[in-house]
């Protein structure tokens, strides 16, 4: 799967795994979730309005175009959420189970 973002600095960091749409994916310590997703995938979510895939826009918490879901149904803003080991992220609306949204954050 092609990536969008390209790492050009700080490449010596330790890496860890998180799960993206059921597939183990490598991230680096200090990555935002958005960077972890877009250095391994070219998009990170479906537009709810039928115009295709999205990859975020502003990277500063203003546009809300990088919302993704955890497998548990929690909504995360990928650009301001640190990636942490063991996260399981769903980027495809079709993979979000019926009734998963919205659910309380634990």
């Amino acid at each position, binding site marked *: 799967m*092609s990536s*969008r*973002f*390209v*790492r*050009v*600095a*700080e*490449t010596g*960091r330790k890496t860890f795994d998180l799960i993206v749409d059921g597939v183990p994916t490598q991230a680096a*310590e*200090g*990555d*935002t979730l958005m*960077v972890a997703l*877009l*250095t391994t995938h*070219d*998009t*990170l979510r479906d*537009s*709810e*309005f*039928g*115009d*295709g*895939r*999205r*990859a*975020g*826009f*502003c*990277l*500063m*918490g*203003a*546009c*809300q*175009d990088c919302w993704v879901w955890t497998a548990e149904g*929690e*909504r995360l803003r990928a*650009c301001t959420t*640190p990636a942490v080991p063991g996260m399981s992220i769903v980027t495809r609306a079709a993979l979000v189970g019926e009734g998963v*949204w*919205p*659910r*309380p*954050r634990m």
Partner: protein
Amino acid sequence: MAAPPDVKAMKVVVVGAGPAGVRAAQALVEAGLRPVVIDEGRKDGGQIYRRQPDGFSRSYETLYGTEAARAAALHRDFQAMRASIDYRPDTLVWNIGPKAVHVVSGTRYEEIAFDALIVCGGATDRLMPVPGWHFAGTFSLGGAQVALKSQGCAIGARTVMMGTGPLLYLVAAQYVKAGATVSAVLDTSTFAQCLRALPQLLAIPSTLRKGMALMRVLKKAGVPVHRGVTPVEIDGSPEHGVSGVRVKLADARTLEVPCDAVALGYHLRSETQLADLAGCDFDFDDATQTWLPRIDEDGRSSIAGVYLAGDGVRVRGADAAERAGRLAALAALSDAGIQREGAARLRAELGRFTRFAAGLRRAFPWPARFAAALPDETIVCRCEAITAGELRRVVREMGATEANRAKAFSRVGMGRCQGRFCAQAGAEVIAAEAHVPLEAVGRLRGQAPVKPLPMAIAPACHAERTVEHAGQCTQEFSE
């Protein structure tokens, strides 16, 4: 004579920890106060002097270039007063009531009372839509900079920078220096416009020289720079996003640049929602063609006790923001009967930055004319994929020539970005369709919460109270 004011009892809330917010807080601390500093970021610095995460190792010179010393000074001064302020990182002000701000951090809600409020909310990119800008891989120019500065990433393997403004050249040069590939810089402004702005830009020769140095970096790296372009389309596919950019060059030829990412922006716009929620009066500003909160020379808004500073009220850059932040704090102190030195010098210095900022607007003008020319199928509202054609329809068929009415009918501006990235271009589309001046379209009213909140709000949120919630938690509160 009134009794000497009880300085320490004065409750001041500073919103923002960028250049303006930090300098405002510092002036308050120097006067013996302990301000609350509310920061949406995890660390101080704001967007321009944003700090990299723990464990990253790039130097200040690498991160901030010619501004390294300023960034280091701001970070150092913030650290030095850290114990003298009530710092609230990772905290959003989502509403402002009379003499109190409503904040949320994670799922914890709180109301913080103030005697004086200094809002230093910063700016975001000013955007003009272009067909295809909804494809994955189009980012704001500011976002492209955040990716590099804060995360050590380029937004693509081959990036096109498009739009206009100082950030266009700054981000392009930063990408080049970091070893990223910039496939082209496509500026909608012309070299002649830059030349005409020179007298004003000479108000701050050192900054002008830095700008020219950026151009040299791009030239030396062989990055194609085209001026006077008209964006035609960002090509791509709904599944895999951006594959290229097409523009019309100044000589009317069409240029196609293959790429996998586009950084787009037309200078900056002030984040004014909090000033709006605080009840501040706004005026239409001819120079920027935007509605801005009314302030006096020192940053006093029309509401007693509410002060506005930095790019969040007038886009004049980080150096000006440091001064405006301090000046606003001095105004707040003065209004409370605490006189401090230094305001006159700050006002004089700000005058130069105001002239320089006017020069930048002249050199890199907002291309209002593009809005009228957008094809009907162009998405204006990225949040909900609403097209220019739909917005024009509600103007034409429903007589919605006022911004809030057009929003109600079309939903442009009603999505989760709350109009940040569509309202200004949307207003231009409305004005062009209705054949009225932009000012007559008005402005979208600020709505609380200014960003979607992670949960339903209890009827009253009291200080220090964490609202327990069950069931519906991720409900949106966009209007």
